[in-house]
């Protein structure tokens, strides 16, 4: 696979702005993480990999609250993304989420729990089977995954589990944007006596029932998760549905 990719990389570079083209590389983790080779084996096994500045991972360099670290993945500059996997090399639970953009742009905002300073990466697979990898370091003081959720103390979530609130924006600079919040403790299972309890799947579909995006979520996604999507165009109501690892399902309609 090495040789054809090199040709592909050269071809890609010719189409990109010089600064971005210079940042394209096939080896040598730009984030210099000691765990990169393991990450590659675990998540991208056997497939060609390209470190690609078109896959943007936006997160604060220092996390104020390790329980709620905002992460925005924007791979919209890269055409033909079929799957994006997000992971954090040094988190006790490494895989954060996967999303399949289908008919929505490859853009997703969410928040994560981080236990210690770590690269946060997004690998976007294009239809040709190449993983395009982007990422950033987040420094944090820890406790994100092994500290109890705030809800765990209040128990309020028991009455409000899977309660969804959301909104679509049809005008202004964020026209076509969807934001969604789901009440869920997202327990990691790393707190003594509290088993893992987290949302596993969220689907977004348009009014005609066509799927816009599928999201597989894992334990590190923050409590009461908030997601930001860009539909690109404001196009009628949206249906969000999903379930957690205990089979609790939700389904909701977000009006235009």
């Amino acid at each position: 696979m090495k040789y054809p990719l090199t040709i592909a990389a050269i071809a890609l570079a010719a189409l990109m702005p010089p600064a971005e083209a210079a940042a394209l590389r096939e080896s040598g983790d730009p984030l210099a993480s000691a765990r990169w080779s393991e990450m590659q084996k675990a998540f991208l096994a056997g497939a060609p990999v390209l470190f690609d500045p078109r896959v943007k991972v936006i997160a604060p360099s220092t996390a104020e609250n390790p329980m709620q670290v905002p992460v925005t993945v924007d791979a919209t500059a890269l055409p033909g993304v079929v799957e994006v996997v997000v992971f954090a090399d040094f988190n006790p639970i490494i895989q954060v989420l996967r999303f399949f953009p289908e008919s929505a742009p490859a853009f997703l905002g969410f928040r994560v729990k981080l236990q210690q300073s770590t690269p946060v990466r997004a690998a976007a697979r294009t239809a040709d089977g190449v993983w395009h990898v982007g990422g950033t370091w987040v420094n944090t003081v820890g406790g994100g995954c092994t500290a109890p959720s705030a809800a765990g103390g209040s128990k309020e979530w028991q009455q409000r589990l899977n309660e969804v609130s959301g909104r679509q924006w049809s005008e202004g600079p964020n026209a076509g944007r969807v934001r969604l919040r789901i009440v869920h403790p997202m327990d990691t299972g790393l707190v003594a006596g509290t088993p893992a309890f987290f949302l596993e799947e969220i689907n977004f579909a348009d009014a005609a029932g066509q799927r816009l995006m599928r999201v597989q979520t894992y334990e590190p996604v923050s409590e009461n998760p908030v997601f930001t999507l860009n539909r690109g165009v404001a196009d009628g109501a949206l249906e969000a549905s999903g379930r957690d690892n205990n089979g609790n399902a939700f389904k909701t309609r977000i009006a235009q």
Partner: protein
Amino acid sequence: MKRLIGWLLGTGASLRRRGRLLSTNGVGAGAGAGFEFKFKFTLTPFAPSSAQRVSKCLALFALSLGTAHAADFDYRLTARPIAENVYAFIGKTEDFDTVNGGNIVNTAFIVAAQGVIVIDSGPSLRYGQQMRRAIAAITAKPVALVINTHHHPDHFLGNQAFADVPIAALAETRNGIAADGNAFAENLFRMSGDWMKGTEVQAPTQTLSAGRLDVAGRRLRLVALDGHTGADLVIVDETSGVVFAGDLVFNGRAPTTPHADVAHWLKALDQLDALTREAGFKLLLPGHGAPTGDAAPIRQTRAWLSWLSAAMRDAAKAGLDMNEVLARPLPPEFASLPVAASEYRRSVGHLFPAAEQEALGAKP
């Protein structure tokens, strides 16, 4: 990795104390670029030999820096007279670090007829001890009472140096210290390093409530407000005309918001404003920044909070994601305020989720 961080902070104590950081901590990560630099080097657990070498070099470097500034761990506290028989120790308008040792706060004392009334005790045991020595250099009278204005660590972690005298606070402040005190202390060990050595939480021993308080032959008026935290005590010394505002007022420094209820805080500022219009008013001592003879810092604090809460609301209504809110530039009128950029980023973490919830139509 923990060991390496311990070296870099030049402290074994910080290592022992460094536990999980609760999301409710008053002061979060944010010691600045130098801090990030250190972390990147410590995070190479699979190359221990080179990582340790690098870290040793860094530790030596940090130590040599430390000698210049802080090897004696002396805060160089000077009691500044702000009114007759009233003194303040004015801290820097900075964030906690290993150079200032946490001396970023104002504390004060009143020399009353029969003893000394101490208002807030600073960020560490060392600060409390040095403060007590500085008080003794001014007066031979014994300390009669220590008051903690609220439950943030820079205002009560010096209590240990006053363990032999009554320490008083509002009930909600006592609860806050009991619940969060240890986590706060752990966080300050991380941010201020060895300046914190030996510091443990000494909780207040008495409960205050609003109204008149006669202590050591002095009549004080206690005004129980909230908004910066769940309980913020304002002390009016009618004899001198000094209003001790605690952290409801910041002067020349961006306010901190980890436990803020901005609507309550704005109401509290209105009440403080009224206190400065009373006939006997002479001086306002903010929790951070220089004392003033007018209400200017109240207006400054109000302007920041009003802008901040409107900015969070507008951003949530416009559909912004938290990273987009963090990336917004500060308006020119606030951009030059000390620590404005870092406090804004923290405040987004504290305040944006609620604004977002409201914009999404979620129940609070």
